[in-house]
């Protein structure tokens, strides 16, 4: 009988924790005394993917730098639900300036920290900037690109929920084709958002050839944590784009948040990979390939595709989009790079 080493832990690496793993191999989120960088009492909707993604990411960053972290936050849901006077949920030093300048604010913080270090500051304090897709791919894009181009020592994390949810679910450049929003209503000859590539900022970030670019979802915690950890090992401009489903904006049940994120990845609608200096280095392979309908159907923002006469052509175009991702990133074979 062939030898099989005992490395299999009942649930592999897919659960948050695992009592059978050595403590050093357990996830940050499994720790009884994790940072909870964003604490209870915040006013995010039930099942908010962004609240979850932010805690995953910032806790992981805090762990990676031993708590020596400063966060800059763009205007948006995350900012509004976490810091309405007189309460804040943040337990890290945190600043909110504007909607479109977060990358630049972080650059300023990094610059200040660099000077302080030269002046004898003993700590290695690091900076993370974070914002939603509107604050990142639209209004904050200029500052983001500038930060990338200068290779400032900032990790920028975009929580992508595909629209302006805080203002009532309007379209952003990260809204996927065919999705209904308040500014791309499901009416007329071509209901929902326009077709096109959209603005896939991870690819644009790669075009800057910054040291590190990665995508992740809230459905793969360990992958997400590993990417944040990796990002914090590197100096210079880094970008992580995390898909965070929005129950309100997507029209999904509050308990479905993680499942929907998983389906986005498993159908190929959202490629999960990491890249260094503009080259894709690894891909999180699809475990169980699924047609895009599996992802679209549970979301009311796509309900118009599944009416009395299903919009098979539109669905087929979305499937093409997913297939293109699968081909481009090698999502079925894990990239094999």
């Amino acid at each position, binding site marked *: 009988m062939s030898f099989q080493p005992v490395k299999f832990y009942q*649930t592999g690496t897919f659960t*948050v924790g695992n009592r059978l793993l050595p403590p050093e191999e357990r996830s940050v989120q499994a720790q009884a005394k994790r940072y909870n960088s964003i604490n209870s009492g915040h006013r995010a909707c*039930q099942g908010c993917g962004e609240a979850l993604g932010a805690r995953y990411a910032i806790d992981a960053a805090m762990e990676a730098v031993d708590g020596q972290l400063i966060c800059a936050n763009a205007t948006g849901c995350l900012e509004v639900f*976490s810091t309405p006077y007189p309460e*804040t949920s943040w337990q890290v030093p945190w600043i909110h300036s504007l909607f479109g300048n977060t990358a630049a604010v972080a650059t300023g913080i990094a610059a200040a920290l660099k000077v302080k270090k030269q002046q004898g500051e003993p700590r290695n304090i690091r900076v993370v900037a974070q914002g939603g897709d509107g604050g990142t791919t639209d209004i904050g894009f200029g500052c983001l690109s500038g930060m990338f181009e200068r290779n400032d020592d900032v990790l920028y994390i975009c929580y992508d929920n595909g629209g302006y949810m805080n203002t009532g679910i309007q379209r952003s450049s990260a809204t996927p084709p065919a999705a209904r929003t308040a500014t791309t209503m499901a009416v007329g000859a071509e209901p929902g958002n326009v077709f096109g590539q959209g603005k896939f900022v991870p690819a644009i970030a790669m075009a800057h050839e910054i040291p590190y670019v990665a995508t992740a979802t809230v459905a793969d915690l360990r992958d997400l944590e590993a990417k944040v950890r990796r990002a914090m090992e590197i100096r210079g401009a880094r970008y992580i784009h995390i898909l965070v489903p929005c129950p309100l904006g997507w029209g999904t049940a509050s308990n479905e948040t993680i499942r929907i994120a998983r389906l986005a990845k498993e159908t190929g609608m959202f490629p999960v990979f990491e890249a260094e200096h503009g080259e894709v280095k690894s891909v999180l392979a699809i475990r169980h390939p699924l047609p895009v309908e599996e992802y679209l159907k549970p979301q009311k923002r796509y309900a118009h595709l599944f009416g009395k006469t299903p919009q098979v052509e539109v669905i087929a175009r979305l499937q093409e989009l997913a297939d293109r991702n699968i081909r481009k990133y090698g999502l079925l074979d894990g990239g094999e790079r």
Partner: protein
Amino acid sequence: MDKPFAITLDPGSSLANKTGSWRTFRPVYLDRLPPCNAACPAGENIQGWLYHAESGDYEQAWRALTENNPLPAIMGRVCYHPCQGACNRQFVDSAVGINAVERFLGDEAIKRGWAFGKPMKRSGKRVLVVGAGPSGLSAAYHLARYGHAVEIHEAGPFAGGMMRFGIPKYRLPREVIEAEVQRILDMGVTLKLNTKVANIADAMKAGHFDAAFLAVGAHIGKRAFIPAADATRIVDAISVLRSMEGEEKPMLGRRVVVYGGGNTAIDVARTAKRMGAEEAIIVYRRTREKAPAHDSEIEEALQEGIMVKWLSTIKQADAGEITIEKMALDDKGFPQPTGEFEKLAADSVVLALGQDVDLGLLEGVPGLEVKNGVVQVGPNMMTGHAGIFAGGDMVPSERTVTVAVGHGKKAARHIDAWLAGEAYAPPPKHEVATFDKLNSWYYSEAPHQVRPVLDIIRRQSTFEEVVQGLDEGNTQFEARRCLSCGNCFECDNCYGVCPDNAVIKLGPGKRFQFNYDYCKGCGVCATECPCGAIKMVPEEN
């Protein structure tokens, strides 16, 4: 720090905002009954002992197992593992090899000499157990644990009952039986061999027993009328198997026909092959699908060169030859004669048509009810005569070792209560953790670990154990394939996936607790719980 008013805030101050008031549904932790446990005739807490095996604490696993079943090394060999048939993992890849892990634990216990704890107290009551088969041994074990003085009276020369006289040693080595019986005796149980109880009432009176558990098994082979020449050798399967345990081995000849489709038919055919028969042919009147024998056993028999005539009945036996009639299934699926005949060479015909119980010891006991050759018992395993309980093959049920062990445990509980003048009320059963309650995404792919099987040549000629055990490595791997259906295994998912940090991690072995001050009731924890140990219930108001 001299903080600006309102626009700069103290860290984590949102704890003042109790978002629990938003909730319309609340998550609650629960234990659901794993389907393996639900399916186990012996009532084992399989998921419970696998939990310990997963972490490599085999002794703890064995102790958890033997809470319900004192015979894991035997069970790990002969149980037909209905648990695996029910296992939810079959919907992910294939069922967990529970039986293999059980065997490993049983063997490990024998190897390491693990012993049962001595009873904490003595009840002063005496219980007579009649029959040292699986049911009797199980009852004796549990009764001893309750503190009762137990005496087993066994008619035969060895303990084990049908485990010894009905199961060939290539499936169950005798030293395994010896070891597990001895461990029970070491608890202070008295075993009297060659002690046939002729009359239960007399025996109880003579031994001052307060209660009795009867588990005499079914040892009398059923006969069927087959027109036969005098020269034809027709024997019954149980006699053949029993004589394998004695000095004089049975003489069956070169060509042996076995009549029947149960496990005993398979056992005797495989035994005949090992005894040197050139041909061992099973004749069964129905199809393979309908045969009561377990498919794995049929498969092993076929591998060893046993031939089977499905849809056939024996019409006549002559010297050195039998006549069989082909059958055909009617539209209701019953076999009907076709009038088509065939002749087979046969030196002997072994009848494996089932067994009857010898109920002689019950004569004259008032209140007993016997129907279809077995003793009727109530839900508490008590016969119509107060204080006399019965189980195993002598009561109406499926006749397997595992069922028998389960009867012994169940009877022991009721006997214990009855002796105290009480009635045992089993705790209410949890709802079963069916596959739809699980989130199988979290279980990574892991192939079933196959137990090694003895070389085919040696199987055909020796009585060495056919199926070997797993080693520690693949035992642990196999244990870790358990999905822990319906029972929290502390994977930290609920703790991790809560967007509101409203789950409190209580520490190893203590599981988790919801912080309802902040839980908004989104239900992500319940959806992402791999094992279905959380459910959402509506809030009262």
